[in-house]
């Protein structure tokens, strides 16, 4: 929901903190997930993730979440799905070129990341292109698996 999405950006600091805590917990539970089987968990977890993140961020389930680097403003709501900052078409009032009734997700990301400690620095890192195979899959489980594996 658009209003909730904007609320989330205004509360980026708290949400980012909660998100990080949640991520650590999910990763710590890696042995449990492995026991049940990641493949078996995929569908129900993705369903829960879609509901929660859909409500809070209008999450599009790209499966490779970068919310922590974008001030809790989901870049997949950009009609051009830009993951590296706004295009040149942002309107003077900060609204989207394609959808004039919507605030540019990157104008929001810029505001949100200012509320997060070190958020603006994260905004400056170049994000990789989207892997469209992951669409619809749980980013939480992917993250848990990656973190449990440790640095490659």
């Amino acid at each position, binding site marked *: 929901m658009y209003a909730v999405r904007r609320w989330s950006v205004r509360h980026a600091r708290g949400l980012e903190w909660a998100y990080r805590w949640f991520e650590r917990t999910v990763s710590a539970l890696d042995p449990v997930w492995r026991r049940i089987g990641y493949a078996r968990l995929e569908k129900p977890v993705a369903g829960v993730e879609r509901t929660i993140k859909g409500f809070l961020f209008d999450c599009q389930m790209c499966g490779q979440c970068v919310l922590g680097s974008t001030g809790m403003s989901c870049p997949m709501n950009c*009609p*051009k*799905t*830009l*993951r*590296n*900052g*706004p*295009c*040149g*078409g*942002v*309107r*003077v009032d*900060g609204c989207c*070129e*394609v959808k004039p009734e919507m605030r*540019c997700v*990157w*104008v929001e990301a*810029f505001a949100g990341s200012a509320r997060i400690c070190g958020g603006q620095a994260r*905004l*400056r890192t*170049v*994000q*990789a*292109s*989207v892997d*469209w195979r992951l669409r619809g899959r749980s980013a939480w489980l992917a993250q848990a698996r990656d973190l449990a594996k440790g640095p490659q």
Partner: protein
Amino acid sequence: MNLNFDDIPDDPSLPMPILPGHVSAGRLERVLRAGAFAVTSEMDPPDSANPEEVFARARIFDGYVDAINATDGAGAHCHMSSVAVSALLIRAGYAPIMQIACRDKNRIAIQGDILGGAAMGVCNMLCLTGDGVQAGDHPQAKPVFDLDCMSLLEIARMLRDEHRFQSGRKITSPPRVFFGAVENPLAVPREWRPHRLAKKVAAGAEFIQTQYCFEIPPLREFMNRVEDLGLLDKVFILIGVGPLRSAKSALWMRSHVPGVHIPDAVIQRLAGAEDQQAEGRKLCVELIQEIREIKGVSGVHVMAYYQQEAVAEVIERSGMLQGRVPWYPGIRTQRQPK
């Protein structure tokens, strides 16, 4: 440095030698690296399958521009493709800047176009996101946007410097291309724009062409921030300018062309003029002269939709070339004594 390009082969469609420290065999890179104030312009892409229309439109710029942008579905409208326009321009000896927009093609098609364009002799490519399909004549089309301009730049550089596709598969001969990107210094969020430029440079942009800049103070501020970020040694910046035809067309552009910001003062000035077209050109000349003085600006990109003939006039009157005549295919016959 010699900018007469004496090493251009008798057949100007053939490549020149690549100078040490250069990434391409192109004239644009040479002009910029030599420190000359560069001029680029944009061709109105033909809605036609006739190559003569491309050649006729290119000839209008003879002796005034260092490179010509071949747009890729400009404004999300259908036109002859940028790869084809670029290949035709190369055939005639011109220096095209082949635009690649992310809107219409996925990474498979784009990487193919980079190799294909380079194989045809294209030395400059401009990586951009592209306007949304809603801005064009086919709003019902599927917007692709598989990549954004940043990942496009990374992939382009990977092809050239690491000799491989994004997949990791090796290519046998890399594209020797000078890669550029675009920026809109006057778009919101303005404080973020210099950082976005830094990201583009980090991703592989070696030159930048900007959207129209009709306001000097914020542009100066932008360039100061770019300098603070230490980018002036890493990238050549060409500022977008252009003659406005009338107050009415300025208003239309402001509301219909994404990313174009024209201040009210400019529109009032045009509206108050007796000859609005002449006033638009005069304003453009003044802007060029002011932009030329801004530290870190390497040139201008003159955009004049459907008034290409105005480009030569504003360049001439601004005096920015200072007697330099940019190379064009007919220049040798011109120079020979009659």
